[in-house]
């Protein structure tokens, strides 16, 4: 039932990777997870072993079909994927138009899924400001911003915090959280930026993910980082983040025990 929205003020920060591996981690700890790709790059499916030639997706027919669930693929135990699919320019414009103008567009399309009580829905949003993000404001329970441990992300932080990036805060639900990606403690700048984020965001920071070559390796083989290398630092960090998300969403996973740590660095 809970809907988590993974977004980012700019592209190339690893948002899709975070969404996919978050889904993997939650699924592995026992929750049913659906990942929905709202990004017309249609890249999310590649994290789940869907062949590149498989262009099925919900966006093309989203306007005509009221229920999108027929496009859902089962990509693993507990793990479901609703790919964006290949979209023509016109289809994309129509989709965005619907998002903007039809207030219940997403609710209707996902209604069947959202009614499944224990299903966690993770939406991979397009980067930057866009219609999908705006439409999500009414639906999302939790919003996760993915930032990089660099100065560009640092400069965008005030925009996010002042809601110049999103029009209004999520008032009804669990709120907004952050993830710092590709943090590299060997580099002074990256270390300092990470440190600043930790100080500034406090418990709004779900965690920091190490820059780790295992991540591209996992993406290349279309599998979860955890499956490629269980001891990978990035996999560990993502696992920690997923546990925190589970607590915030009130999911009863595993033995239910969760040891709160604000970030791996202050543990």
């Amino acid at each position: 039932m809970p809907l988590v929205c993974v977004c980012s003020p700019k592209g190339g920060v690893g948002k899709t990777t975070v969404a996919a591996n978050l889904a993997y981690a939650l699924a592995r700890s026992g929750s049913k997870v659906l990942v929905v790709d709202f990004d017309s790059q249609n890249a999310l499916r590649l994290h789940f072993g869907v062949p590149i030639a498989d262009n099925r997706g919900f966006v093309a027919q989203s306007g005509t079909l009221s229920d999108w669930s027929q496009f859902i693929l089962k990509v693993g135990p507990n793990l479901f994927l609703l790919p964006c699919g290949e979209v023509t320019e016109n289809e994309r414009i129509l989709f965005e138009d619907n998002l903007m103008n039809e207030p219940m567009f997403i609710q209707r399309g996902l209604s069947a899924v959202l009614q499944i009580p224990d299903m966690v829905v993770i939406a991979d949003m397009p980067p930057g400001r866009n219609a999908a993000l705006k439409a999500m404001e009414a639906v999302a329970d939790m919003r996760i911003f993915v930032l990089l441990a660099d100065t560009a992300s640092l400069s965008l932080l005030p925009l996010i915090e002042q809601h110049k990036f999103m029009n209004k805060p999520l008032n009804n639900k669990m709120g907004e959280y952050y993830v710092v990606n590709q943090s590299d403690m060997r580099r002074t700048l990256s270390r300092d930026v990470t440190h600043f984020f930790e100080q500034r965001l406090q418990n709004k920071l779900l965690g920091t993910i190490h820059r780790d070559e295992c991540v591209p390796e996992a993406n290349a083989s279309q599998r979860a980082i955890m499956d490629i290398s269980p001891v990978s630092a990035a996999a560990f960090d993502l696992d920690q983040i997923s546990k925190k998300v589970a607590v915030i969403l009130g999911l009863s996973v595993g033995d239910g025990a969760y040891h709160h740590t604000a970030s791996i660095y202050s543990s």
Partner: protein
Amino acid sequence: MNKLLFSFLLLLALPLIVLIIIVPMSSDNQYIFGFICIAIVFILGVSKSKKITLIMFVMSTLMSLRYIYWRATETLHFNSTLEAVLGIALFMTELYALVILLFGYIQTTWSLKRTIEPLPDDVSLWPTVDIYIPTYNESMDVVRDTVLAAQCIDYPKDKMKIYVLDDGKRNEFAVFCADAGVGYITRNDNKHAKAGNLNSAMKVTQGELITVFDCDHVATRAFLQATVGSFLIDERLALIQTPHYFYSPDPFERNLSEASKVPNEGALFYGPVQQGNDNWNATFFCGSCAVIRRTALEEVGGFAVETVTEDAHTALKMQRLGWGSAFLALPLAAGLATERLGLHVVQRTRWARGMTQIFRVDNPLFGRGLTWQQRLCYLNAMLHFQYGLPRVIFCTAPLIYLLFNLNIIASSAGLIFAYVLPHLVMSIYINSRATGRYRYSFWGEVYETVMCFHLVIPTMLAMISPKHGKFNVTDKGALLDDNYFDFHIVRPHIIAVSLLLLGVTWGVVRLFMPEHYGANPQVIMLNIGWASFSMIILLASIAVARETRQVRKTIRVDATIPAVLHFASGAAMRTETLDLSMGGVRLKTPDERFLDDPIEEVELALKSGVVSFPVEVIDVDKSVTRLMFQELPIEKRRELVRVVLARADAWIRDKPHAPDRPLRSFLGILRCIFELFYFSWQDRREKKQWRKNQPDVKQGQEKEQII
């Protein structure tokens, strides 16, 4: 009122006390009396109460006084002048031992177990502190971590200033201090050694309190917060001393396997003795790991320069002016023990000389300003270091009868035994009960016997001419790379043992042929027993001179810290540390990536933040990865110091030593002697084998050349 009552009771008991001390008894009666007293003490020993200990002290004191009274009145009749001289020398030795024993009782009966005085919440009330790290010729490796650890002390940055006082005036030190961000002070001359160095620094710094760390004493983070509070509570407090803890083994611990299991040499002093001193407001400064109030120091004209032990003398001077001193028995800093027996001897000789100098130039018994308890505490410290000659006499005294057939105790063996037995048994038993957790029985004998021959002349010279002699620096931080036997240091001990062996052999011969030599078998037996005990202690002391190779110098902390390994490919693997030292780290191997991907850095999630260290791989297998840190920049090294060396509880023992068991302790000393012979034999065999193998190698080389 209480005092009055006490005096009254004492007066009442006085006749009884005198009676116990002076009434002469026949041999049989004395035996019975002695055994009854021993039995009473043993029965009382079941109770662990403090009051019972006090009663035992009184009983032991009376028994020892009875012994010495008997010795003084009954046994000092001699047949010749030579016997008289030797006999009186032995009696003086025993008298000295008795005085030290009784002072020890007084000192350790009432000990003050001080706890930390917390600082007020309002940081603005905390006094400013100067930290002095005096150095002369010690290497940068030793001083570096001391400075970095001092910087890790938790205290407001604007109230704590660190200064390296470099009498060596070395450029690299100046550069390092600038890099690390601490003060660097030198002076034009090196007058008055360490004391002069500290005094010259006092002129250029302004802190209200002055902390001195010897350049190898690495402080823990809690050092100031644990000590400074006392100065705010007590306005007349001049000094708070903390123990000198050593993280490297001292020569005893290194060279005697048994010594590493018993409380070390310093445990007694930095435990019951200084706590006892503290109770009488007579704790003295020990040169390092202490905080001193500047105003008190200035009143006595800075650190004392008249003697080579400026520390104790400075404290004495301050106390004469009514300043208080305190001792906090928490190891809040740790240093390097002297690395070799030779250096240990040099250091202790300096202490002994300095204490003797103070005894002469500023005797605590005289002069103004001290309470009688303070006088006794200081006097005890000075007298303690006079043990050189008495021990030599005591060790070698049985030779006088065994080799030369001279009688220096005019009494029958049976009677001697009857008097001396309860005196010895009770004092050993009670010392073991009162301070046994800090020093096991007979180990004091070993510690002192190692030193005794070397102390005789220096203390005597200092006693005659206290103005002579200069300060010598104790070298530290050197590493021994091979086993060797330091004959030079224990030559007198070896000579003494040889003579004693000769004496015992001759004694046995006389014992079995009484018709030829007409000696009293009982007296011979007594002397053989005495000589054997001396030999055991001497041999154990000799065993210390078998210097063993030092394998590992750095301190290792078993800490499980989350870590990330960074590989050359860019992969980062999560794992955790097994242990950590200033030199490197051991971790669980995360997976088999190491087979084809070299490890470049290790990232440790320390409490202060994440730090990544460039490393070299020492050894990796499927379970354990061993990495060595490469040259670290100062900031990273400081972080490492903070974790490895500066933890507040770094040097606090989990549990105290087990109570002393005198017989067990004696067996331990016998074991040391066994190991002396066994290991020496083993070394010799190895050397022989090595020599045997040498020619083969040569032949092999020749063969290769021919080919």
